[in-house]
């Protein structure tokens, strides 16, 4: 990406994207939409957390909430939703408004939590997430309470309904790829570098004259936008949204995805979401139906025990010996993704 020859990482990304684009030809429709498609959309929400955690050092539990804001705003606005609260706003207008609302909610969470770190940040974002969940569950006028808003079918793309397996898959894949590229780009901009500076030593960044608080809030805003894209796609996938989709369970699931995949690089979010989706779908076939959550939990524990930096860490350790031999200098400087594991920061 930095002029001249493309880096091996960029080549690998393009190859992976091409492989994923051809994937639906090889696998049954169920796998296309409900394993890979689902993993992409939840992966986007998870990536918004990975972005904050990896490059800013902020572990936030409010990402599902930001996605939920986008989902609810779209559900309230679009035509044919049940119940129709505002309705009649075409998707072309409703989607930008929803993303704007999600970005605003990200900025708000960032502003509220601007002076907190570590466990306190975790608690304040958790409180906001649970608060929003309970508010949505109790509010009838705008959120239709416990039952939520149904029949949010998504826009038509080239005359095809959004819930068509391939439309959904490619929309999810395209959004995931664009947002992934966006994150990789942003962390190389001056803004992204200051963010990483804040992660490593906020006081020094302030001494250099940067407004650390403003950068933090902006990072939460960007994370809100990313989570909002994911939340919208999740809402279309689920044909609607209800408080259950933004409750404590889904909130923790997003964190679990990030940890399984590995905080350290945005791709970890998608790896984690894929592993999570596979187990969530098939654990009941492998293990006793009454107790399959035990298996999901055991796999999570195993991954975290064996590799505290998730599947990514496992992969990195597996290829490290190969890489060591042919490493030749300057390329290493451009890659910001070797940041210290989160645990080492305190």
């Amino acid at each position, binding site marked *: 990406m930095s002029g001249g020859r493309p880096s091996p990482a960029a080549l690998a990304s393009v190859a992976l994207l091409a492989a994923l684009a051809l994937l639906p030809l*090889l*696998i*049954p*429709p*169920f*796998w296309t*939409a*409900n394993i890979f498609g*689902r993993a992409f959309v939840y992966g986007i929400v998870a990536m918004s957390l990975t972005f904050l955690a990896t490059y800013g050092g902020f572990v936030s539990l409010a990402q599902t909430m930001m996605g939920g804001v986008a989902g609810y705003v779209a559900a309230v606005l679009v035509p044919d939703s*049940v*119940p129709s609260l505002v309705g009649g706003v075409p998707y072309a207008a409703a989607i930008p408004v929803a993303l704007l609302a999600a970005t605003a909610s990200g900025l708000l969470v960032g502003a509220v939590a601007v002076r907190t770190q570590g466990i306190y940040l975790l608690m304040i974002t958790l409180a906001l997430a649970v608060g929003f969940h309970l508010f949505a*569950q*109790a509010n*009838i006028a705008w959120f239709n*309470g*416990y*039952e*939520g808003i*149904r*029949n949010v079918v998504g826009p038509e793309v080239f005359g095809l309904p959004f*819930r068509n397996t391939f439309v959904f898959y490619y929309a999810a894949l395209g959004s995931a790829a664009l947002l992934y590229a966006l994150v990789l780009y942003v962390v190389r901009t001056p803004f992204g570098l200051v963010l990483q500076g804040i992660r490593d030593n906020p006081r020094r960044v302030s001494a250099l004259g940067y407004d650390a608080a403003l950068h933090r809030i902006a990072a939460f805003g960007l994370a809100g936008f990313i989570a909002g894209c994911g939340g919208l796609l*999740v809402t279309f996938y*689920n*044909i*609607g949204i*209800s408080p*259950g*989709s933004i*409750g404590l*369970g*889904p909130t923790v699931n997003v964190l679990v995805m990030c940890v399984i995949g590995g905080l350290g690089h945005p791709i970890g979010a998608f790896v984690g979401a894929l592993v999570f989706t596979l187990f*969530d*779908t098939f654990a*009941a076939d492998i293990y006793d*139906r*009454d107790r*399959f*959550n035990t298996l999901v939990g055991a796999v999570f524990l195993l991954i975290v025990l064996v590799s505290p930096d998730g599947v990514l860490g496992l992969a990195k350790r597996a290829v490290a010996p190969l890489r060591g031999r042919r490493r030749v200098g300057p390329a290493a400087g451009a890659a910001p993704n070797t940041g210290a594991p989160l645990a080492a920061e305190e």
Partner: protein
Amino acid sequence: MDLRIHRRALLLGATGAAATATAGLKAPAVAQNAPVRLGWLATLEGPFATGGQDGFRCMQMLLEQHNNQAGGRRIEVVRESSNAQADVALARARKLAEQDRVDMIIGPLSGAEGIALRDYSRTLAGKTIVNGSSGASDTTLRNASPNFFRFSTDGVQWMAGLGNHVRRTMNVEEVAVLAGDYAFPYAQVFGFSLEFCRAGGRATYLFSPLGTTDFSSIIARIPRSAGALVVVHGGTDGLAFMTQYAQAGGNLPLLGGSVMADQTMLSARGPHRRIMMGMVSAGPLADVHEEPSWKEFVARYRSRWLNEGGFQSPSIHGFNYYTAQQAVLMALEQVRGDLSGDQKAFQAALAGLRFKNVMGADLHLDHNRQAVSDIFLNRIEERDGRAQTVTFGRTPQVNQTLGVPEAQFLALGAPSRDNTGCVAAS
């Protein structure tokens, strides 16, 4: 990758073979030898886990009775579990239909899940969803889906008869209604108020959020003029309210929603038992009912499940799932196991069924494929040394709009905190 290519080749081969078999031969013999694949979906996790387990128990008992066969075909069951959340139920149903390739799904258990699956069923051409035990009225009342069937009655229907009983038999003019602040209690309150206010009654409504533990402020707000209390709480909320009301020395006659007079409440110890004796409630079933088919059902349930974690008497969810699967088996018999032609014949058979459920109540479906059946008035009495609900009255053939013309009922709007259904007769 290799594995996937194999998998795909295999699938292609299988679908190809199936296509030639159905298109070329059109021989029912071939189709009849393949098993019918039935997907069971209930909540084995989360707040309604015990209800979901009981649903599976009752359906298993029924299949055992039928030797796992219907219409000359073997029945194969694929079980899935959700946690009472709409999106989880949807993901599981998608897996059942698209990955496990079941022919039909029986489920889900709770309200929001039912609405999500109703929406999903529209996209499932050639498959059928038969509701398990979810009771939101909108699932079938508004935006009904052509391949979603419900053989159980909903939360509004379950209150039929109670309003008239309070106003006419007990001659109470004013009541206080205490209810949880979410969809199911709204529906129950709506069903009660519609009858009670039409008969000239007046009501004060006191809603409290799900999970309330301290009801003292609610108890203090019960008006002095109220002649009876209608309590539409369930689970721990109901227990907490009853205990505190008993300790506060409350002595108004009590009436309950359909999940109030429930074995989980009756088997708990505490002061609430004293005031709950004699409480009247309404619902589709009771512990004690003088009907041979019900006595036989309860006896069969107890001998099969009492030592394997079952309840003293089948739960409402067990009863609903059992009825749903009864309907499926009957319709399969009628079409002799023939599910070809996008299940059109099978679905027509389902829609046309008329039978008596195990409570001895006549049951048929309306134009929205929603059950019309009898609702019972129950009283809590001491039987066999424990508190049980006993039927003493019956409202025959209750439909989804409680006898109000459908257009008029729909015009009242969906039940909510601000729409309690309390409109005087015009």
